[in-house]
């Protein structure tokens, strides 16, 4: 869901590329309604690329067609695992354009920029 926000960095600034990650999975309530609400907001390619970076391959490369009433429960469960239960505890996110590196510590990404930027 993140893109680079360094000033003047407006193109090709997404998705931020994860590296040196340490993952923690925390179980949380499954909420199919929230997931349905999120699907149209996701950039599917970016999600797949990012998921693979953290070792998750349970999502299809292409968003399934049947996005109406009967979405596959299994699909939603996997999405739930990725969006809500997988937390990057430590790591780095690098902007593909300007190469700015945002570090993640204790699960909190540091999005501060130098003020001159």
């Amino acid at each position: 869901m993140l893109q680079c926000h360094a000033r003047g960095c407006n193109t090709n600034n997404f998705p931020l590329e994860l590296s040196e990650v340490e993952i923690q999975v925390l179980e949380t309530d499954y909420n199919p309604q929230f997931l349905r609400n999120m699907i149209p907001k996701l950039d599917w390619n970016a999600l797949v690329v990012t998921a693979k970076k953290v070792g998750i391959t349970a999502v299809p490369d292409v968003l399934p067609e049947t996005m109406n009433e009967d979405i596959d429960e299994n699909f939603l469960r996997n999405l739930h695992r990725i969006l809500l239960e997988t937390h990057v505890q430590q790591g780095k996110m690098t902007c593909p354009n300007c190469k700015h590196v945002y570090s993640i510590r204790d699960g909190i990404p540091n999005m501060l920029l130098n003020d001159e930027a």
Partner: protein
Amino acid sequence: MSRPEHQAPPEIYYNDDEAKKYTSNTRIQSVQAEMTYRALELLSLPENESSFLLDIGCGSGLSGEILDEEGYIWVGMDISPAMLQVALEREVEGDLFLQDVGQGMAFRPGTFDGAISISVLQWLCNADHTSHNPKTRLTRFFSTLYSSLRRGARAVFQFYPENDDQCELIMNTAMRCGFEGGLVVDYPNSKKAKKYFLCLFAGQSAPGVKQQ
């Protein structure tokens, strides 16, 4: 008592001690809770939908806890590492970001269904560093916020304006960034209870209409 935003920049003012003090103060807790509920009311989100919210200046997660209770999924950001540390210790559900909102936000367009912010906006009007220009920072903030909201989403800010000029600067900047909306003043005649809520609408779609 002088205003905290005049004493030091927020990331300095809310150090470890201040963050703990702030969070464990029951009066602050109840005022925060009350303002959070009021902000949610003003957001008027569709019922029975699990909205995705942004908490701007989430601090130690006092309002986040209410968002958790109310069943919202949320993301919080704050400039004070000490406050975020307390939020971690309190095990709030939301994802946390260390961020200076005056530098703009990095969320994909249309990510959030709404945003709330409790007692933060006035901090943005300060020039804590020589390179800070309140107007530039407000513009950066409102324009990136606008794009991170889905069309028709609302953002509600409780804040303590210092004077009319500051209010006007904030309002004008928000409008220039595309927002519509206005100020709601609760208890206007009570010096103590008076509360300002800036309510902004992103895009002009009618409430209740589903957007893609």
